[in-house]
């Protein structure tokens, strides 16, 4: 093949310029699936590889990016009192949103990939594809006003200490995108919580998300936002978490391709419903009295359970374990949401908590199997 030979001529020496070689290798394998053949059994392999799996997740996120950019623009103009009809000035809103969101994506990718390439070249192996998804998820879970330098610092710390320190793709204990968000949350809390951060480009504007309003009760929410608005996503919030139908579309796509586990998603839903019903029965605070099904409309539950909790590396790996893991994510997330006075969103912390406990959940499931086998012996 002419193109392949052309590229092969450009290959830098692996020993003399390792970083350049890793960059070349990453680019080359992006363009071409290499001609590696099996040396010994098994001689045949499935056509799917990790690149394809990862790109499917990225594809599922693309509609969220498009809507997210539009929504950032829409909320911006809404705050300025202009173009309040959603169909007005779509182009201008998209452009504004793109100018806020794309730099975030570029920063997340450049910083993250740069660090990954460096570590890969140091270890002497090819760059692995896990970061394609992490880098695509990070801007979607940040508020549109997050300063880029903070984003860069958070991504760098998350990738180095959350992933590379453990051995790279497939070895991390916690979800890297959530780790980046948690770093921003604990190190620079004003940039990610409160009412002033959810609408871009309007200083001092207090754009409370429906979730923040819900702490005072559901009627506080419906005074400002209609359920249709919350369903379709024309509300302030993180870049990618608002449009429920598009999240469902992405989730269904991941379910169809069996990349995400339906057990985790369904378990999470059941956990949320269980906790929600419990709170409704208890009814001590206004937040607890919010009907359980409305919790699906607000905040980032659907996004978190579809894209973050289902990360195969950090979630439980046994089928029964996935049910328990998903259920506990739903349970703890709602618990943190309703009880936490400082920040009414629990999924980030709940998923990180369950990531740490996932090996233990698997261990208990495996124990049953191992005990059965040892009893036979």
């Amino acid at each position, binding site marked *: 093949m002419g*193109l392949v030979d052309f590229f092969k001529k450009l290959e830098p020496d692996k020993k003399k310029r390792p970083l350049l070689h890793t960059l070349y290798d990453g680019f080359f394998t992006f*363009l*071409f*699936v290499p*001609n*590696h*053949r099996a*040396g*010994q*059994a*098994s*001689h*045949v*392999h*499935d*056509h*799917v*590889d*990790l*690149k*394809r*799996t990862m*790109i*499917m997740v990225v594809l599922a996120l693309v509609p969220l990016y498009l809507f997210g950019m539009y929504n950032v623009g829409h909320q911006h103009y809404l705050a300025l009192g202009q173009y309040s*009809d*959603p*169909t007005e000035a*779509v182009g201008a809103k998209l452009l504004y949103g793109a100018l806020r969101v794309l730099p975030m994506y570029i920063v997340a990718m450049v910083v993250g990939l740069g660090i990954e390439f460096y570590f890969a070249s140091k270890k002497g192996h090819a760059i*692995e594809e896990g970061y394609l998804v992490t880098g695509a998820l990070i801007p979607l879970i940040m508020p549109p006003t997050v300063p880029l330098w903070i984003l860069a610092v958070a991504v760098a710390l998350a990738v180095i200490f959350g992933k590379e320190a453990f*051995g790279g*793709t*497939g070895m991390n204990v916690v979800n890297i995108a959530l780790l980046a968000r948690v770093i921003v949350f604990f190190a620079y809390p004003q940039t990610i919580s409160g009412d002033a951060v959810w609408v871009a480009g309007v200083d001092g504007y207090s754009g409370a998300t429906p979730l923040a309003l819900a702490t005072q009760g559901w009627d506080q929410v419906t005074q400002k936002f*209609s*359920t*249709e*608005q919350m369903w*379709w996503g*024309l509300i302030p919030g993180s870049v990618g978490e608002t449009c429920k*139908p*598009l999240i469902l*579309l992405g989730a*269904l*796509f991941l379910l*169809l*391709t*069996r*990349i995400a*586990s339906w057990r985790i998603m369904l378990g999470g839903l059941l956990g949320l419903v269980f906790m929600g019903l419990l709170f409704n029965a208890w009814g001590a605070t206004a937040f607890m009295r919010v009907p359980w099904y409305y919790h699906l409309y607000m905040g980032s539950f659907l996004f978190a359970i579809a894209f973050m909790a289902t990360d*195969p590396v950090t979630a439980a*790996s*046994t*089928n029964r374990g996935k049910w328990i893991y998903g259920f506990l994510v739903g349970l703890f997330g709602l618990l943190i949401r309703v009880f936490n006075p400082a920040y009414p969103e629990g999924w980030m912390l709940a998923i990180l908590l369950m990531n740490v406990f996932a090996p233990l959940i*698997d261990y208990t499931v*495996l124990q049953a*199997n*191992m005990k*059965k*086998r040892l009893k*036979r*012996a």
Partner: protein
Amino acid sequence: MTLTPVFGLIFPTLSYIILGLLALMSLLYVLSFLMRKRPPVKKDLKDVIVLKKGYDIPIKGAPAGDVQDVKVTRFAIQPKNFRYIFPIPKLTVAVGDQVQAGDVLFFDRDRPDIKFVSPVSGTVEEILRGAKRSISEVVIRADETQHYRALDVVPETAERARLVAFLAEAGVWPMINQRPYDVIPDFDKVPRDIFISTFDTAPLAPDGAKLVEGREAAFQKGLDILARLTSGSVHLGLDGRKDIHPAFANAKGVKKHYFSGFHPAGNVGIHIHHIAPIRGGEDVVWTLGVQEVITIGTLFTEGKFDATRIVAIGGNREASPRYVRTFQGAHIGELLGYSPAHDVRVISGDVLTGERKTEDEFLNYFDDQISVIDEGDYYEMFGWLLPSRKVPTVSYTYKEGLFPSGKPMDIDANTHGEKRAFVMTGEYERMLPMDLFPQHLMKAILVADYERMEALGIHELSEEDIALCEFACTSKQPLQQILRQGLSEMMSE
């Protein structure tokens, strides 16, 4: 919640499109689940163990037709086909010696009673050496007509020790496989059961009926002898998907078990797991192939060592997929009858567990098929992204994986991606119909956690059982290699 779209003039279309896509995606998801393939079960058959996990890789070029005779002049016995024997066995023949079928060629210096014998009568042509002076092949040039070594056949009713000594001297002992670890059996360890699978579900494998046709008496005699060697029973794994040969269905003195399912439902390891699972490193069971049982039986029915083998030749690069009759260890080039092109891969055995061979090499000891497939030396531009031409896949990211057509396809030896860390979960469990956690077992082997390996059931597995998981692995991990590494370490513990 009402579904009235909130958008104005342009957006109703968009919101209906999104809702339409949601409906379509849900429909596809549900359909792909409802239309999944289920294993066939022969009508009116009761007590069939149906195994839902696994996958039959559909490859073009399945062997067909009547068994043909083929002229092969050279045969070889390869010491490396036997696990854990010394690479330089003690030879009892030299180049130029005349041997008869069943004459001793070599033995392992640690166990001199177990003889490895010649499959044919003829002249010892070559003794090929491999690395570090190891013996790689003992090559015999066969006579036109076969002469057989005179054997002092022990009566069937003799005590176990005499039978065992006779089988070892006659050269059939290495045909018996002992699990766990897949080793040549110890004389004094009496197996608690013997398992024989009468159907092979590996891709392009020969049909069991063809293997036993015309040799039914020898097969039954082999079963009778084996029954005398175990403290328990001889278990036959039978094909529950379709009609089977009467020699299997009417076999006497054995326990019959019907299985239906996709590969690896025909693997003897799967049968053992569902009938009487291996309980640990000290448990002893034996497994044999149908043709090996026939060879043992022939010792008693005809008093001679007959290493006739029916071999299936197939694959998408094989011009005439067929069955041939030959002897063990046949020369591959002569079996094929042509010189394979450079972009063709010839495999002794099946594509999942076999060994790559050149046309100058020989069929492996236990193999009864040759697979001829594409080499796959090509670069695929954006191969991981674009919908590719039809290839066998179990991944739901391809139409073929979502809605399998079942049509035979081309296949090649391209790995379709590079080796990565374990990322996806649940892949291996889909391909292995055993109550086992293969991914955790692999991880336990890689960190050499012996207690965990044992508790997770490493003793129940052999490479052929995990081979389909290796096919399905997104991260292209060498699972069979890892398993063997684990088994070797457990053995030395």
